[in-house]
């Protein structure tokens, strides 16, 4: 449980901080890293961490009183999507999720025996 919590916190911190730095591809890198680990639980935990990590800056924007919901609606509209705030939020978080999954898949597909499998 401690390991899982620790991994979750690290992923949240890493994805959130790097998002502020403009390093949008870090969830993919994290996916690759956890893909090299043999524990089955690491991928779901990393996915959850990355999603929360990308949600954190949005939450902080909202906490600062900035019109996050309205901005989400604007982005959705400009992108040609239905002009609803949740659409942009879902797409944004989906990008983090997909990156981790793709990174983990790539790592496990290319380095299948890097680590012995453990549960």
């Amino acid at each position, binding site marked *: 449980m401690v390991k899982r919590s620790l991994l979750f916190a690290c992923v949240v911190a890493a994805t*959130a901080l*790097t*998002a*502020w*730095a*403009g390093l*949008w*591809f870090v969830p*993919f890198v994290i996916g690759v890293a956890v893909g090299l680990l043999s524990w089955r639980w690491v991928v779901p935990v990393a996915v959850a961490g990355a999603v929360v990590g*990308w*949600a*954190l*800056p*949005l939450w902080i*924007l909202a906490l600062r*009183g*900035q*019109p*996050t919901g*309205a*901005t*989400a*609606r*604007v*982005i*959705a*509209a*400009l*992108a*040609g999507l*239905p*002009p609803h705030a949740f659409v*942009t939020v879902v*797409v*944004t978080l989906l*990008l983090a999720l*997909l*990156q981790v999954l*793709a*990174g983990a*898949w*790539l790592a*496990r*597909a*290319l380095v*299948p025996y890097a680590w012995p499998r453990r549960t």
Partner: protein
Amino acid sequence: MYARERRGRRNRRVRRIASAVGAVVVSVALLGVMGFGYGTIPALGPALDPGRGAWTSASSGDPVSSRTLRVPGLSRPVTVSFTSDGIASINAASDHDMFLALGYVHAKFRLAQMDAERRLGEGRLAQLAGPSGLVSDKFELRLGLLRTARNEWARTSGQARKALIAYAKGVNDDIAQVRANGDWPALFTLTGTYPRPWTPVDSIVIQGVLTQELDYTTSPLDEALLKRSLGARNTTSWFPALPANESSPYDTGPYKKEPLTPVPPNVASSAPGGASLTAATTHASPVASPTSPASPSTFTSTGEAGGSQGAGVADGGEGTGEAGGAGGVATTRSGKSDAVAEAAGQLLAQLGQLPTGQIHEYPDSNAWAANGPAVAGGGALLGGDPHLPQTLPSVWYEAALSAPGYQAAGATVPGVPGVLLGHNSHIAWSLTDTQNEATLYYAERIRGDSYFWRGSWRPMTAVHYTIPVRGGAAARLTVDITAHGPIMTQAGQKMAVDWMGNVPSNDLAALIRINQAKNFGQFKAALAGWRAPTQNFTYADDNPVPASSASASASASSSASASPSASASPSAPASPSAPASPSGQVGNIGVYAAGYYPQVPKGCKPWLPMSGTGSCDIKGVIPYNAIPQAYDPPSHLIVTANQRPVSASYPYYIGTSADFFDPGYRAGYAYQSLRAGEPLSASSIAALQTSVTDSLASQMVPKLVASLHAATPGERAAAALLCSWNYSMGAGSAAATIWWTFWDDYLSKVFSPWWKAGHVPVGKDPVGLAVGAGQVPLDEDLQAWTTSDPSNRAFRGPSGHGYANASAAMAAAFREAVSHLASSQGGPPSSWTWGKVHSREFPSVTGTAGLGYGPRASGGDPFTEDAADGGMTATAGPSWRMIVSLPRPSSTSSAQASSADKSDISAIGVYPGGQSENPASPWYANLVPLWWNGKYLPVPAPGSVDDGVKWTLDG
């Protein structure tokens, strides 16, 4: 067993390989799309990065708070205060700092809009919008706003040059800040296309875009197609040079007939370098001619087209099936005429693909001024509401500007330094479009890369462009330019456009001088450099009325002249700032329709494409002193509403009824309403600005009712509604729906059979060719025939078996209207309210659904003062409403005026939009409800500092 194990191992290996390949493909695709985008899909990674992507645009959606901002380039700190509604007041210690701060503030709130506008004008829209922007880019690069802007910048000097440079610096200060902190407007982040630094040329291009929207017309092309389809006789009769009705001109003469002001024939060629005629002939040395030169006698012919407006009608009307005239292309050979019509159709189809409003399509704007006894308490009053495409964000940004020697407040245009409509300490002004013909088309004789002009073959100037396209390959474009201007057609008969918007015009210098003018003399002098778009500059001041004007007023008042605006004199007093008259009257009013009115030799027909061989070149423009104008008319009223500004006896050609002149319904109603409401106050002006009374209905409905023999209960109920109607096109009026549907059907009953028989290619340009309400010449024709020529042959149709007269056609149209409404609306006629079928919408300038306002049920139609243009879901109308009171100064303020240039001038204004372009901002659409409900906000006085939010800009 072994084989099975081997197969299993092989299968696992295959699965592993497939998994690896799949993982690589998916990862590359995902990272590729996220990192670089695909086609028009933006790079989603940086775009939606929650820390740096489009999300950061939320910061500009924050309510604005007081703070100090570093703005390099300022010599002294500048204060920018905002009212709670976002209206900005800029107070600076110098003109330079004021313009720099204005550029900074414009960019802070409208950077994406400014960038999109300059892209549009410079033919770089596709770089932002993808392949869908290519049509616009090619059109703009052909037309040449950018070339003209560069030519204009090369000639800009003095205060205007300094203002443009300071303004650009302010915009670039903001761009640098945004680049540093990454808080780009979402549009940039989502497209991955960021704005390059601002230049003075960009500001001139934006001014050019406005000019194009107000001044680039296609009426000669439409006329060519109509003439081919309907024949010369019908076309000339139904689209005459002079309207068939009274248009309530504000300048009724007497007129001066002075020699034309000469201009070089290539004044609007847009050729790079701003080549003068001499330069053009030097660079474009004649090529050996295989044919005999054009008749020089035609070119040297004296007198301009038609000689006068009235003669223009006669020329066309007396044609023999083919419009005559030495210079008219259409007259040379029918084959040539067909080729020109084909080219016209091709060009119209091309222009039809442009976004709505990119070229001029509707009459627009009201501006009224009153003074003397017409105003409660004396002084002067000015009201102005320019009708333009209504968008979010608006074309306007409201601001008050103050620096020593520069006090102006009102509507500014993001991208342009200065106040375009507003007031200063002594004068107020507003603009309406004059609508004169400023776009001439020439059918060129082309051989290879040469064109035949003035007796010899000359090489065209070729300009090559590469147009970047987001998500696609760059497009290449070559623009050929003749002495007349750029070739606009792509195949068949080559047609050049000679557009006055391409005349290098130092409009910005004029604007700055207007902002600083103190009397009509200075105002007129400032406008001397204005070329395009031709505008009715409506004026009011708080200066003493010269004794001559006061006495003229008195005599006119006593004689109760029926003339709407009999000018005291076309020429303004040389020194309107003369001492107070004995009568003690204060407050002068005036109007001056500044701009170029191109004139061609007699016999040429500028309402059709003309020969490009030189015989119909522009030979000059109407001299400055003879252009339409009025000053302190005895009626104490001036109304401009895009109506033909002069009467039939005006000695120069200014355009035909097809040139978007308003039919005069708004002007006529305004004169009537203002006169009835005297003495006027700001509330009188406000009531008129929001009036939805349709004056055409007030003339036609009584005649309709008289012609009816209602047969069905529905028709009787509909007729009863019309009988008790007050002609208000209010959203809740059922009679309004019946009237409008009837009028549309009436037009259709009379004209559509002719259109069908002639196979008018309406699809090429529905705005200019379709039969329907708002097709001004046809509205005017039907109004005039119904009133005074009810047996006009047009009613009988091309077969001769149509309607016997106007009454029969009206009755049939009424029956059809009721039948149509009964089936489309259901229920009793009293439930067919106008708001159910008519609405207004303020779309986002990005074209993005969901970021606009409406559609919302609304009153008004194209003929009402509160105009609604663009169809049953109107997207154009009053884009800014302003009322300025210039009262008799109090004794206290008179004393102040001499020392501190203060005055009692006060203004109120509102526009449908908000100061911020960010849809997440509370200032995005906060002014819409006010506008919608006919409310106004005080326009901050120049130099005032609001108690609310304040920025201190410090270099």
